[in-house]
């Protein structure tokens, strides 16, 4: 599952690595780290938001390890795909490996194709599809769109995105 975690780090060198090491040690996959140096807490600590894909049974262990290392964890929660966008694809969508096109988004970990509507007028004609992408945040959604744009370009598919 995807977990988002708000942490507060001491403002001394090496703290971010110190906080991230236990995540990888427990087999977690770090999806995003937002390090807000300019938004210090009243106590002079630096807020960091971490999004991790990990086995939920190991979450308690992770929290214990972080506390041991002097990291304040102020909130944890399951991360949901909060931002969505519809894009259209026109071209040989199916015959250019639709599965791989979708996988290019899904494998990011921070975004997924959550809906697909396909219209195929004839065997050799171009198809049209609307694809709904969801992501854990605006930045990630934008990144997912970039990935899809590159995939579409490589496959000669026209991509139409919202203004």
């Amino acid at each position: 599952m995807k977990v988002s975690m708000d942490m507060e780090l001491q403002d001394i060198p090496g703290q971010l690595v110190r906080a991230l090491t236990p995540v990888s040690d427990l087999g977690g996959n770090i999806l995003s780290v937002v390090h807000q140096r300019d938004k210090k807490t009243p106590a002079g600590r630096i807020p960091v938001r971490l999004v991790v894909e990990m086995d939920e049974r190991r979450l308690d262990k992770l929290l214990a390890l972080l506390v041991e290392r002097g990291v304040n964890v102020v909130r944890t929660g399951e991360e949901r795909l909060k931002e969505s966008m519809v894009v259209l694809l026109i071209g040989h969508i199916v015959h250019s490996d639709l599965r791989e096109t979708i996988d290019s988004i899904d494998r990011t970990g921070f975004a997924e194709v959550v809906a697909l509507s396909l219209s195929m007028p004839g065997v050799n004609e171009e198809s049209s599809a609307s694809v709904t992408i969801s992501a854990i945040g605006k930045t990630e959604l934008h990144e997912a769109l970039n990935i899809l744009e590159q995939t579409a370009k490589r496959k000669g598919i026209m991509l139409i995105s919202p203004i």
Partner: protein
Amino acid sequence: MEKKNRTVRITIIGFGYVGAGVTEVIHRKRAEIARRYGLTLNLVGIADLKGIFIDERGLDEAELLKLRTGEKEWERPGDMTSIDLIKEVEHEVMVETTPTNIDHGQPGLRHITTALESGRHVVTSNKGPLALAYTPLMELAKKHDRELKFGATVGGAMPLISLMRKNLAGNEVLSIQGILNGTCNYILTRMAEEGLPYEHVLKEAQEIGIAEADPAKDVEGTDTAVKLVILANSVFGLNATYKDVEVAGITAITSDALKLADDAGYVIKLIGEVTKAGCLKVRPRLVPKNDPLNVSGTLNVATIRTDLAGDITLIGKGAGPIEAASTILSDILSIYT
């Protein structure tokens, strides 16, 4: 501000539908303009590939308009050319309305440089010279202390350029995004409303004169791209050329795609966008149905994003002889008022 109660002598080079539109508008508005602005507009010469008419006391516009219907024949005094007319006939404003060529800008480019060098102000609807040589032309105008006005090159009747240059003075324009080609908008609107295929709607548009026999310039996005180049150079002071624009047209849009867009709450429009940072793109985009950019038929629209005023959206007729002439007339008057 120049002195009032004066006569402004005008020539029109290029007597196609825009040139004729300007002629008609001058005829219709002469009395009103004299009363409101103290300016008497006097058409002293017109030139076209087919011939030339000159009268330093003023041509009869109603008579000239018969040239368009075939009720009057073209003439050519001696072997006079349009260049001779610009140089030799005394006038203040040369209106350049010959067809756009985006590869070399001719004959418009030669007409404009000759006019500025001969001390004429220039008002044009011709996109080619502006897109190819914006900076040198502006420098030439400055050197000769003349005005070069080109509002009619972008957005037809919408006063897009003058709005940004005059009325939004003090604001920083961050980006401009919109529909700048009425032909594409007509085709996409009809396809979406009737569920008809592209080829069918294109043919229909050609039959009613909205699309040209060779529609490539419009449907492949070239026309929009050239307009973006003019905006980039005139509003953002960039030194952009056509090659800097990333262009995709509407020829690949399917009626299925329009249906899918509709189901998701969008329409597909050919959107041109130019940013302060120099990003120029023409491509089909999804526009939410309730967005101000969702205008139908042949209408044009542009949203100007500014730092102080926020977003300002203009909607208007993008093409048509009288609409283009409206902007040309405003440009002429702005030289003197």
